[in-house]
């Protein structure tokens, strides 16, 4: 017998034991499409919400070089506010999106007096003269402090900011690297922090550290990919610029260094003119290409409208060059996620390519349909002679073009735009039967469901 179970839903009012629901919220917050800071705040909410460990307040410090700096402080400012927040957090059906909005609101009120108190705090991570809160990260230990005002090892500035006598320091470390620290207290309930609370908070700390670490690695990887792409670009541009310059220089020198008849002068000038146009084209395409910003957040937009606009724009050319465009666009297409201007460019790119690949008198087919709840697909089919397997393997590499004067940037641009909006591109090609490019966009609905 086989039974399938879904993962435990991250539910802030779960009927499950609070330890289980807390771990579920924390671990699944890693997969939410929000920023590292927002996700860390969700973890802090879980630590402070009634159904979680139930601490009153959570304070976050982040490591910055050799310093530990005050970051965010989440929690109520008064017992009344505490009741109000707990009420909000116990609304049935509360999801990550609502929690994140709630947190943003918490941090924005009165320019957040609490965060204002800890933001100026900064402690050296150097090993000598360790004071609390740094001791916890320096020694990688959970430190429960009671009667803090009598404890000489507690930093007086910190004590003044937190204003309570009992608190728990949870270090955030990964691979021996200090990432930050969370400090928890029960400022309003005055409830004593019990060993089981410490254990659970410690577990959450480990997961939070893991999350920060993974997020940082991911960020570094994206950065490295960008650098590698830049290097490749630089090499490509070099080639695209040096060739025309060599021709222009050479034919100019011919005219300068030796007498030439009228025909030769004219020929040289025409070559030089052509190469200048080519350089201009390089600059144009490049400026265009560099406009795609992969870090830009995709927004929902009307794909139908973009597609119709591009098709309309292509109509005169289709008529003039004797090719038919048949469009089959689903009227009920949901909005998709992406950068509308870049996606418009992508569609134009693919349709122009299809045009150039197809013989006069042939037909290009463009279709857009909803594939399922999560994806919308757009396909562009040409009537060309297909792409060889060797060419297909290099289709998206920057140097590759089959056109006489192509930059070889078009499909790379398409790929970059699709990557940036979380979509995909596939190619189907059969010798003699044309080529189909199939784009898949994430539909807006799915973006919602995730949130």
């Amino acid at each position: 017998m086989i039974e399938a179970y879904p993962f435990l839903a991250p539910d802030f009012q779960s009927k499950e034991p609070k330890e289980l629901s807390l771990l579920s919220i924390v671990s699944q917050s890693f997969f939410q499409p929000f920023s590292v800071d927002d996700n860390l705040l969700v973890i802090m909410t879980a630590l402070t919400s009634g159904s979680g460990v139930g601490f009153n307040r959570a304070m976050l410090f982040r490591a910055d070089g050799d310093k530990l700096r005050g970051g965010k402080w989440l929690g109520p400012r008064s017992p009344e506010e505490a009741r109000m927040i707990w009420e909000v957090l116990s609304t049935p059906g509360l999801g990550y999106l609502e929690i994140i909005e709630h947190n943003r609101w918490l941090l924005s009120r009165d320019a957040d007096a609490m965060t204002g108190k800890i933001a100026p705090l900064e402690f050296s991570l150097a090993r000598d003269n360790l004071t609390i809160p740094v001791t916890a990260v320096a020694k990688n230990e959970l430190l429960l402090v009671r009667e803090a005002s009598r404890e000489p090892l507690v930093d007086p500035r910190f004590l003044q900011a937190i204003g309570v006598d009992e608190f728990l320091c949870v270090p955030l470390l990964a691979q021996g690297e200090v990432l930050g620290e969370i400090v928890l207290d029960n400022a309003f309930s005055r409830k004593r922090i019990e060993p089981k609370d410490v254990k659970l908070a410690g577990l959450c700390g480990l997961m939070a550290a893991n999350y920060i670490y993974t997020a940082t690695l991911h960020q570094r990887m994206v950065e490295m990919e960008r650098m590698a792409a830049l290097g490749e670009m630089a090499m490509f541009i070099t080639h695209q610029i040096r060739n025309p310059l060599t021709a222009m220089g050479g034919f100019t020198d011919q005219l300068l260094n030796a007498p030439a008849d009228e025909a030769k002068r004219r020929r040289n000038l025409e070559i030089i003119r052509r190469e200048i146009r080519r350089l201009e084209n390089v600059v144009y395409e490049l400026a265009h290409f560099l406009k795609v910003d992969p870090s830009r957040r995709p927004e929902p937009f009307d794909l139908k409208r973009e597609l119709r606009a591009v098709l309309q724009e292509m109509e005169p050319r289709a008529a003039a060059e004797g090719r038919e465009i048949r469009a089959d666009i689903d009227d009920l297409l949901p909005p998709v996620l992406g950068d509308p201007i870049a996606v418009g460019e992508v569609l134009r790119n693919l349709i122009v390519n299809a045009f150039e690949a197809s013989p006069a008198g042939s037909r290009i087919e463009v279709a857009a349909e909803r594939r399922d709840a999560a994806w919308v697909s757009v396909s562009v089919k040409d009537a060309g002679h297909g792409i060889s397997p060797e060419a297909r393997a290099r289709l998206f590499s920057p140097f590759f073009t089959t056109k006489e004067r192509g930059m070889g940037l078009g499909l790379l641009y398409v790929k970059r735009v699709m990557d940036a909006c979380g979509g995909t591109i596939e190619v189907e090609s059969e010798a003699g039967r044309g080529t189909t490019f199939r784009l898949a966009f994430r539909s807006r609905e799915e973006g919602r469901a995730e949130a």
Partner: protein
Amino acid sequence: MKRILIVEDEEALCLLYEEELSGEGYDVTTARDAEQALEILKGERFDLIVTDIRMPGRDGVELITQIMGLRKEIPIVINTAYQSYRDDFMTWAADAYVIKSSSLDELKARIRELLAR
């Protein structure tokens, strides 16, 4: 008269090299890609080969390897827009590495040197 084979896919550059090197007193033949170059080399003898690296079809690095196998004694000049291939050990087999520029002086000087050897 010394014979030079130019392998270059850019039409304008082919014409330029042909005219300029003929003006220097060489007998110049041009090939637009590696395949064509290998075909020509089967039937003719040259004193020097000038080749680009990135071209449609088989690329220049591969061409050099093949030519090295075919005619070990012919000096080869790599003439390319890319600086980075200088680090590719396959290109060390060439006798000179000239980066394309708006002046042909360096290319002409290297060719003169190699043919004077």
